[in-house]
C-alpha cells in the first residue's frame, strides 16, 4: 500500500493521532525569501522562549555562499538556533534553519537533509518542506509565510490545510517583498493575516485553543447537545451555501470544524454555532475548509504509472471518428484532469488516426472550477512536473505556468454535484481520487454503482490511495490493487441505480431513510423494545412514500403482495394483490389528499388459494416531520365465512343486481383510466430522461461557447494588432510623402509632370526660372504656359514621347543666356502604365562655359610649349613626338618632321648612349610617380657635342588614352666646363689644407701630451716639495719648538732670556704654521694617503673653517672603486679652485660639493648660494674669476672632461665637471702604470 511506502499521501484518516487535541510537538514551518531576514528577526523577537513550539526556517539561500542566518537569529531569541547539518530530532523551543544548497523534509519529528535534485527543485524548498510537514504532522503543523518574492509556499500551504494544519501569512502591507504572502493569501486558505510581530502570539493562542477544544470525534453516537449543534451547523451550511454535508464522514467533518473552532478560539460546537450565525464570512470559511481537496500534477506517481499502462487499451479499437471519454469528478483546481489529459495526449500523439479525447472535469466548488479553467499554476509545479512535460505542455507567463491550449481544449470543466446532477455516460475512464473518503459507506456504494453504470464495458476506474471499490463487490475487478486501478466488470444491470435522486441538496423530495437515528439514541432503549415488539406482533403493514413506492415492509405483509412480470418495481400499487389494487389506490389518494386516515371496505380476495376478506387502512404520517408525506398502510384480513356478503344490508334484489352491474361497468372504466394513467407516467419518465440528456448536451455546448469566446477574444487581439500595423503603414506613407515634397522643393532640377491630356500635374519650384508658372497653373494645359527659352517644339516633343514612349533630349537656350538640357521621359506608374510625361531641365550653362575654357587653355598650352625659351619635347608612350619647342630646333638643328618618333631622335642625337635613355624612359612610364633629372651628351645635326640636363615630368594622359611625357632640357655645356675648372682648383687646395691639418694635429697631440706630462710633473713636484716641507723642514721646526720649550723651562730664572725665548717660540710657531699651510696647499698628504674622498672632505672642512662659510661634501660612489690618480688630482684641484673662487667672489652662505662616481664617468658639482653672475655677459669686472674658470677648464679638458657653469645674478653659481672614465674596470694602480707609460 503506497501510503506507507511513500508517506507522502497520508490522508486525514491516517493522521498520526485521531483524538482531536493535538499531541506531540507543534512544528511551525516558516518560509521566507527576499526581505525575510528582517521579518524573521521581528518574528523571533516576539516569540517567547518557552512557547512550546519547534520552528523550522526555510529560506532561499544562495547555494554557494555560507549562511550565517542562524547566528543572526540567535541574537534575537533565547531559543537555541541551529543550522541543520544532519538528520535532527526536533524539540520544542528550538529553532532550526535550512543550510545553503540543501532541502529539508520532516518525518515523524525528525528533520532530514536532501541534496537538491536539480535547478528546478531548488526553486521550491518551502513547498517541499511544507508538504512533508503536513503529511508528517497533520494538525500539529503550522505554516508561516513571510516576506519574499515568487510563489514558493503556495502549493505547500494547501497540503498543510488539507491535513488540518494552520496557515499564517505576513501582512503584505508590512512585508518588504509582498509577492510570496500575496500568492499564499490568494489561495484563500490563510487562517491569519497578521503583522510579523503578532504571529507568534496568534500561534500560541491557536495551540492553546486546540488543547481546550472538546470534540468527541470518535464517539458514536454524539452526545445529544453536540449532535443537535452539528445538525444545525449542517442546516446553516445548507441554507447559506446549498451544500449538504450530512452524508459526509463524521470524523473528517468534525476535525475540519474543530480546526475552524481553533482559528476562532472557541472550544465547543455550540459556541462555534454562535460564531457561524453571527459571522456570515465564517460560513464561507468553513465551506472552504470542508471542500478543500488538494491535488498536484502527477500526485501519487505509481497510480499514474499503472494508468499509463492501460491507456493504450482505451484507444484500442477506436478510430479517428470516435471519442475517448473520461470523467474526473471532484477535479478541484484541475491538476488531476490535466494530468489525465496529458497522459492521453501523449499516447494519442503516437497514433496515426487517434480518436478525439474528451475529458469531463467536474467539481461542486465553482471557485475551484474557475481556477481550473484558467489553467494557470504557480511556478512551484516544477517540483511535480517533469522538465520535458513542462516544456511540452506549459507556457511560462508572468512567473507562472499556463497549460497549453492543446491540453486545455481536451478538458471540459463544469460545476457538478456528483450525487445530485445527472452523470456523464459512455465513459472509458473515471478517475475519482480522494472523494469517496469523505462520504459515508452507503453513499460510497451508490457512487460506485453510478460509476459502474456510466462506464463502458471494460472501462477503467482510478480511485484514491486509501479508497477501494470493495463496497460494491462484483462490479469492479482490481487491475492494480496498490494503485487502486479497477476495471468494470460486466454485471447484471442494477435497476437501483437512481443516483440523481439522492438528497444532498434542498429538494422537494428531500426525504432520506433516517431510521437509524432513533436506534442510535441509547436513551430510547424502551422505544427500541417497543419497536421490536411492534415489528413482531403488529399488523402486516407497509410504509410508502408519496410516490407509493414501498420504503418499508413489515413482517407478514408478503401475502398481500405479488411479484408482477416485467421490470422489478417498488410501487405498492403494482405489487399489491390485483384484487386489492383499485381499492388501495383510491384509499392512498384520498388519504394523501385529505391527510386523514382512510379505510377500504372489506374485500373478498383469494390468498394462497383460500378466500379471505381483506380490509386496508391508510394512515398519513405527520410525525416526525422528516417523514411527512409517507403513509402507513395497514392490512387486516379474516377468513371469508360468507358473513360479510350475506350482510343483511346487502340483500340482493334486482336493485342490488343493478348496482353490481353498474359497479362492474365502473370498474371497467376505472381500469381503462388506470392503464392510460400508467402509460402517461411512463412517457413522463422517458421525457425526463431525455431532458437529462439534453441538459448534458447543453452543458457541453456551454463549454464550447466558452472556448469560442476565448477564440473571439484572441481574434480581437489580432485585429487590434493589425490595426496598429495599418496605422504604422499610414504613418510611413505620410512620411514618404513628406520626403517627396521636400525632395521636390530642394531639387535644383526643374521638373514638370504632365498628364496624358498635356496638363500640368506638378512641378518643382526651380521650374519657375524657366516657365512662368504659379501654383494655380496646375491642371492647365502646358501649351498655355509661356516660357523663356527658344524651345519652340516642346508640345510636339511631348506628344512624340507619348506616342513613341521613348525619351527625348534637347539642348535649349533661355533668353537670359542660360543653357538647359531638356529631357522628356514617359511617366511610368508602378504597374507600368503611361500616365503622362516628365520634363526635366538641367542647367548646363556652367558646363558649356567650362568646355570653352578647356578649349582656350589647350591652345595656350600649345603656345607655351612652342614659344618656351628652353628646349621642350613632348612625346607619347608609343614613341610619337607630339610637339617640340622652337628653341629645340634652334639648339639641335632638328625640326619636328626630322624626328617624327622619339626613337628617331634617340638614334640621331645620342648614338651609343641611346640605350640608357631608352631604359630611363621605359622606367618613367612604368613608375608614374618617378621623375628624372638626367645629364646627357647629345650630338646636334651639325655634329657638335653639347651637354644637356634633361628633365622629364611624370607621364600625363592624352585624350585618346595614350600616356605622354614632357621633357625639358637645359643646355649646361658652358656651365659644366666652368664647374670642372673650379673643382680642380678646389681639390688641389683641399689636399694642401689636409696636409697642413694633419701636421697641426700631430703637433697639437704632442703639445697636449707635453702639457699633460707637465701637469703630472708639476703635481709630482708639488708632492715632493710638500713631503720635503712636511718631513724635513716641519720636523725640524717641531724640534726647534720643543727645544725652545725646554729652554724656556731652563731659563725660568732669567726673565730677560725668557722673553727672548718666548719671542723665538712665536716666530717658530708662525714658521711652523706657514710651512704647514704651504705643504698642504702644494699637495695635501691625505690625497695620497687616504684618497680623494677623504682629501676632499678634509679640504672642504678646512676651507669652511678658514672662511666661515658653511660647506658640505656629499659623495655618491656605488662602485667603491678608486679613480686613476691623475683624475683624482684633477678633481681635487678643480674643487680647490672652485672653492677659492667662491671664497673670493661669491659672497655665499652655503656651499655644496658633490662627487659622484659612476662606472663610466666621474662628476663633481660645486654649488654656492652666492651672488652669482651672468655667464653670457662680456668679460668685465673680476677677470680672475674667469681666469679661475678657464684654469679649471684646461685641467679638465686635458683628461677629456668638460666643465659647465650655470649662474644667474642673485641666484648662486653651480659648476658641473664631468670626466669620462675609460674601461671602468681599471683600478688606480693600472691607470698609474698607463700614465707613466705615456
Amino acid at each position, binding site marked *: 500500500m503506497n501510503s506507507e511506502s511513500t508517506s507522502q499521501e497520508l490522508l486525514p484518516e491516517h493522521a498520526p493521532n485521531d483524538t482531536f487535541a493535538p499531541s506531540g510537538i507543534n512544528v511551525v514551518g516558516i518560509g521566507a525569501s527576499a526581505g525575510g531576514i528582517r521579518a524573521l528577526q521581528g518574528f523571533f523577537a516576539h516569540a517567547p522562549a518557552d512557547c512550546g513550539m519547534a520552528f523550522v526556517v526555510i529560506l532561499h539561500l544562495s547555494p554557494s555562499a555560507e549562511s550565517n542566518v542562524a547566528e543572526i537569529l540567535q541574537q534575537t531569541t533565547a531559543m537555541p538556533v541551529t543550522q541543520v547539518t544532519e538528520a535532527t530530532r526536533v524539540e520544542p523551543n528550538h529553532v532550526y534553519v535550512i543550510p545553503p544548497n540543501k532541502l529539508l523534509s520532516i518525518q515523524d519529528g525528525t528533520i532530514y537533509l536532501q541534496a537538491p535534485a536539480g535547478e528546478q527543485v531548488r526553486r521550491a524548498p518551502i513547498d517541499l518542506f511544507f508538504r512533508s510537514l503536513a503529511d508528517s504532522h497533520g494538525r500539529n503543523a503550522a505554516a508561516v509565510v513571510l516576506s519574499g518574492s515568487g510563489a514558493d509556499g503556495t502549493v505547500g500551504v494547501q497540503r498543510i490545510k488539507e491535513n488540518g494544519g494552520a496557515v499564517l501569512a505576513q501582512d503584505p502591507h508590512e512585508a518588504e517583498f509582498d509577492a510570496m504572502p500575496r500568492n499564499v493569501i490568494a489561495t484563500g486558505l490563510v487562517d491569519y493575516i497578521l503583522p510579523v510581530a503578532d504571529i507568534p502570539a496568534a500561534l500560541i493562542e491557536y495551540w492553546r485553543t486546540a488543547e481546550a477544544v472538546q470534540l468527541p470525534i470518535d464517539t458514536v453516537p454524539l452526545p445529544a447537545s453536540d449532535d443537535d449543534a452539528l445538525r444545525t451547523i449542517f442546516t446553516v451550511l445548507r441554507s447559506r451555501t446549498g451544500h449538504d454535508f450530512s452524508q459526509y464522514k463524521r470524523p473528517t467533518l468534525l476535525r475540519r470544524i474543530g480546526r475552524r473552532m481553533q482559528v476562532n478560539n472557541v472550544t465547543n460546537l455550540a459556541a462555534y454555532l454562535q460564531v457561524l450565525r453571527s459571522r456570515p464570512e465564517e460560513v464561507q470559511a468553513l465551506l472552504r475548509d470542508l471542500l478543500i481537496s488538494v491535488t498536484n500534477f502527477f500526485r501519487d506517481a505509481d497510480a499514474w504509472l499503472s494508468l499509463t499502462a492501460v491507456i493504450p487499451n482505451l484507444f484500442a479499437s477506436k478510430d479517428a471518428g470516435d471519442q475517448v471519454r473520461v470523467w474526473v469528478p471532484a477535479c478541484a483546481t484541475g491538476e488531476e484532469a490535466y494530468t489525465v489529459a496529458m497522459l492521453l495526449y501523449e499516447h494519442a500523439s503516437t497514433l496515426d488516426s487517434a480518436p478525439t479525447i474528451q475529458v469531463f472535469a467536474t467539481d461542486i466548488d465553482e471557485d475551484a472550477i474557475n481556477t481550473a479553467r484558467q489553467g494557470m499554476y504557480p511556478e512551484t509545479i516544477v517540483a511535480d512536473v517533469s522538465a520535458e512535460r513542462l516544456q511540452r505542455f506549459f507556457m511560462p507567463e508572468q512567473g507562472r505556468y499556463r497549460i497549453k491550449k492543446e491540453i486545455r481544449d481536451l478538458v471540459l470543466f463544469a460545476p457538478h454535484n456528483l450525487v445530485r446532477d445527472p452523470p456523464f455516460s459512455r465513459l472509458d475512464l473515471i478517475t475519482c481520487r480522494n472523494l469517496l473518503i469523505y462520504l459515508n459507506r452507503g453513499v460510497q456504494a451508490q457512487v460506485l454503482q453510478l460509476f459502474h453504470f456510466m462506464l463502458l464495458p471494460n472501462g477503467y476506474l482510478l480511485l484514491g490511495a486509501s479508497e477501494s471499490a470493495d463496497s460494491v463487490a462484483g462490479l469492479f475487478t482490481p487491475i492494480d490493487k496498490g494503485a487502486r486501478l479497477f476495471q468494470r466488470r460486466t454485471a447484471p444491470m442494477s435497476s437501483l441505480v437512481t443516483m440523481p435522486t439522492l438528497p444532498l441538496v434542498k429538494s422537494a423530495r428531500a426525504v432520506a431513510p433516517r431510521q437509524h437515528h432513533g436506534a442510535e439514541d441509547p436513551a430510547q432503549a424502551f422505544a427500541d423494545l417497543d419497536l421490536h415488539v411492534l415489528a413482531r406482533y403488529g399488523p402486516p403493514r407497509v410504509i410508502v412514500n408519496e410516490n407509493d413506492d414501498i420504503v418499508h415492509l413489515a413482517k407478514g405483509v408478503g401475502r398481500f403482495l405479488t411479484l408482477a412480470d416485467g421490470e422489478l418495481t417498488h410501487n405498492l400499487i403494482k405489487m399489491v394483490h390485483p384484487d386489492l389494487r383499485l381499492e388501495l389506490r383510491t384509499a392512498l389518494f384520498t388519504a394523501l389528499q385529505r391527510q386523514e386516515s382512510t379505510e377500504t371496505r372489506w374485500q373478498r380476495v383469494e390468498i394462497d388459494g383460500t378466500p379471505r376478506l381483506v380490509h386496508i387502512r391508510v394512515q398519513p404520517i405527520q410525525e416526525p416531520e422528516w417523514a411527512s408525506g409517507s403513509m402507513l398502510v395497514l392490512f387486516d384480513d379474516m377468513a371469508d365465512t360468507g358473513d360479510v356478503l350475506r350482510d343483511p344490508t346487502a340483500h340482493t334484489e334486482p336493485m342490488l343486481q343493478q348496482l353490481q352491474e353498474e359497479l362492474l361497468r365502473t370498474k371497467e372504466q376505472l381500469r381503462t383510466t388506470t392503464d392510460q394513467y400508467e402509460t402517461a407516467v411512463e412517457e413522463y419518465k422517458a421525457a425526463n430522461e431525455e431532458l437529462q440528456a439534453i441538459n448534458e448536451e447543453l452543458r457541453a455546448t456551454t463549454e464550447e461557447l466558452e472556448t469560442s469566446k476565448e477564440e473571439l477574444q484572441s481574434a480581437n487581439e489580432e485585429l487590434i494588432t493589425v490595426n496598429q500595423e495599418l496605422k504604422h503603414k499610414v504613418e510611413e506613407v505620410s512620411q514618404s510623402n513628406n520626403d517627396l515634397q521636400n525632395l521636390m522643393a530642394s531639387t535644383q532640377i526643374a521638373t514638370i509632370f504632365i498628364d496624358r491630356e498635356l496638363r500640368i500635374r506638378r512641378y518643382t519650384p526651380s521650374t519657375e526660372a524657366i516657365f512662368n508658372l504659379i501654383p494655380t497653373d496646375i491642371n492647365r494645359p502646358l501649351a498655355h504656359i509661356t516660357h523663356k527659352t527658344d524651345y519652340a517644339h516642346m508640345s510636339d516633343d511631348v506628344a512624340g514621347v507619348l506616342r513613341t514612349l521613348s525619351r527625348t533630349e534637347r539642348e535649349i537656350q533661355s533668353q537670359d543666356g542660360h543653357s538647359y538640357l531638356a529631357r522628356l521621359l514617359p511617366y511610368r506608374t508602378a504597374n507600368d502604365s503611361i500616365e503622362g510625361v516628365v520634363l526635366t531641365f538641367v542647367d548646363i550653362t556652367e558646363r558649356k562655359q567650362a568646355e570653352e575654357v578647356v578649349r582656350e587653355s589647350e591652345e595656350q598650352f600649345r603656345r607655351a610649349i612652342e614659344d618656351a625659351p628652353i628646349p621642350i619635347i613632348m612625346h607619347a608612350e608609343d614613341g610619337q613626338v607630339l610637339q617640340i619647342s622652337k628653341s629645340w630646333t634652334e639648339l639641335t638643328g632638328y625640326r619636328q618632321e626630322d624626328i617624327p618618333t622619339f626613337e628617331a631622335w634617340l638614334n640621331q642625337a645620342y648614338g651609343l648612349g641611346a640605350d640608357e635613355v631608352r631604359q630611363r624612359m621605359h622606367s618613367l612610364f612604368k613608375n608614374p610617380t618617378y621623375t628624372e633629372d638626367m645629364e646627357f651628351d647629345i650630338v646636334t645635326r651639325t655634329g657638335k657635342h653639347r651637354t644637356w640636363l634633361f628633365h622629364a615630368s611624370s607621364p600625363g594622359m592624352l585624350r585618346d588614352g595614350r600616356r605622354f611625357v614632357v621633357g625639358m632640357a637645359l643646355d649646361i655645356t658652358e656651365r659644366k666646363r666652368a664647374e670642372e675648372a673650379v673643382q680642380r682648383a678646389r681639390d688641389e687646395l683641399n689636399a694642401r689644407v689636409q696636409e697642413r691639418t694633419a701636421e697641426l694635429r700631430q703637433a697639437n697631440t704632442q703639445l697636449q701630451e707635453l702639457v699633460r706630462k707637465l701637469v703630472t710633473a708639476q703635481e709630482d713636484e708639488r708632492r715632493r716639495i710638500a713631503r720635503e716641507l*712636511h*718631513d724635513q723642514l*716641519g*720636523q*725640524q721646526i*717641531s*724640534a*726647534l*719648538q*720643543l*727645544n*725652545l*720649550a*725646554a729652554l724656556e*723651562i*731652563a731659563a725660568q730664572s732669567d726673565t730677560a732670556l725668557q722673553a727672548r725665548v718666548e719671542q723665538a*717660540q712665536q716666530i717658530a*710657531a708662525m714658521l*711652523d*704654521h706657514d710651512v*704647514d699651510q704651504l705643504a*698642504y696647499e702644494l699637495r*695635501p*698628504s*691625505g690625497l695620497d*694617503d*687616504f684618497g680623494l674622498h*677623504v682629501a676632499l*672632505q*678634509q679640504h672642504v*672642512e*678646512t676651507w669652511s*673653517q678658514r672662511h666661515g662659510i658653511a660647506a*658640505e*661634501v*656629499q659623495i*655618491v660612489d*656605488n*662602485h667603491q672603486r678608486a679613480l686613476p690618480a691623475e683624475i683624482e688630482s684633477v678633481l681635487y684641484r678643480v674643487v680647490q679652485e672652485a672653492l677659492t673662487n667662491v671664497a673670493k667672489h661669491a659672497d655665499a652662505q*652655503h*656651499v*655644496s*660639493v*658633490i662627487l*659622484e662616481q*659612476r*662606472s*663610466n664617468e666621474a*662628476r663633481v*658639482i660645486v*654649488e654656492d*648660494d652666492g651672488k652669482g653672475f651672468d655667464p653670457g655677459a662680456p668679460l668685465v669686472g673680476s677677470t680672475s674669476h674667469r681666469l679661475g674658470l678657464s684654469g679649471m677648464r684646461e685641467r679638465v679638458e686635458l683628461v677629456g672632461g668638460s666643465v*659647465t657653469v*650655470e649662474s644667474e645674478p642673485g*641666484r648662486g653659481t*653651480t659648476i*658641473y665637471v664631468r670626466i669620462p672614465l675609460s674601461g671602468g674596470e681599471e683600478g688606480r694602480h693600472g691607470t698609474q702604470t698607463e700614465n707613466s707609460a705615456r
Partner: protein
Amino acid sequence: MERKLRILLVDDHAIVREGVSALINGQHDMEVIGQTSDGKTAIEQVQSCKPDIVIMDISMPGMNGIQLTTRIHEMCPNTLVLALTRHTDSTYAQQIIQAGAQGYLLKQAAAKDLIVAIHTLAQGGVYLDSAVASRLLNNGSRQTSGAATEQALSERETEVIRMIALGYSNKEIAAELNLSIKTIDTYKARAQEKLQLYTRAALVRYALERGWLGND
C-alpha cells in the same frame, strides 16, 4: 717616591726625538727609557722594556704609526700610545685611535701641550688635540634630511629633485622635461621649501636615502 713614567720615543726624525726627550727628561715624574726611528726596533723595545707610554710619529718609513699601534695594542694592551704628528687631518686621528692609541697630539702644539697629554694618558684619560677634535666632531653633525616635516612633493617636483640629485644641470633637466629653466628653478625652489632642504648636498642625501641613485 713614586715611580717615574717610562716613555719610549719612536720617530724617524732624530732632531724631534731629541727635542721631545729634552722636554720629558726635564720633568721630575717621567723619563725617556728608549728611542728608535723605526717600527721594527720599536716592537722589540716595547717587548723588552715594557714602557708605560709609547710616543710615536705616524709617517715613518717601513711600518707606519697606525700599523705599529695595532701591533703594540695586540702585544701589550696595557702600553699606552700617544701619536705625535704634524698631520692635522682628522682622518689620521680617527684611524690611529681605532688602532688602539689613547692620545693624538700635533707636533705644532707639542711644545705647549706634550706634558699635559702625557699626564692625561697616565691618569687613564684620552687626549685629543683641540684642532683635530673639533674636526672629528664636525664630521658627525651633518644636516639631516627634512623628512620629519616633509610635505608630499608633486610628481614634477619629485622628477626635478631626482634629476638634480643625479647631477643634471638645470639646462639638461629643462631639455629633458621640455620645460623652461625658470620653471625648473621654480619646481626646485618649491620642492626645497617643502623638504626644508636648501643645499644640493642635502638633496643628494635625500635622494640616496630614497634609493633614487641606483647603480648608475
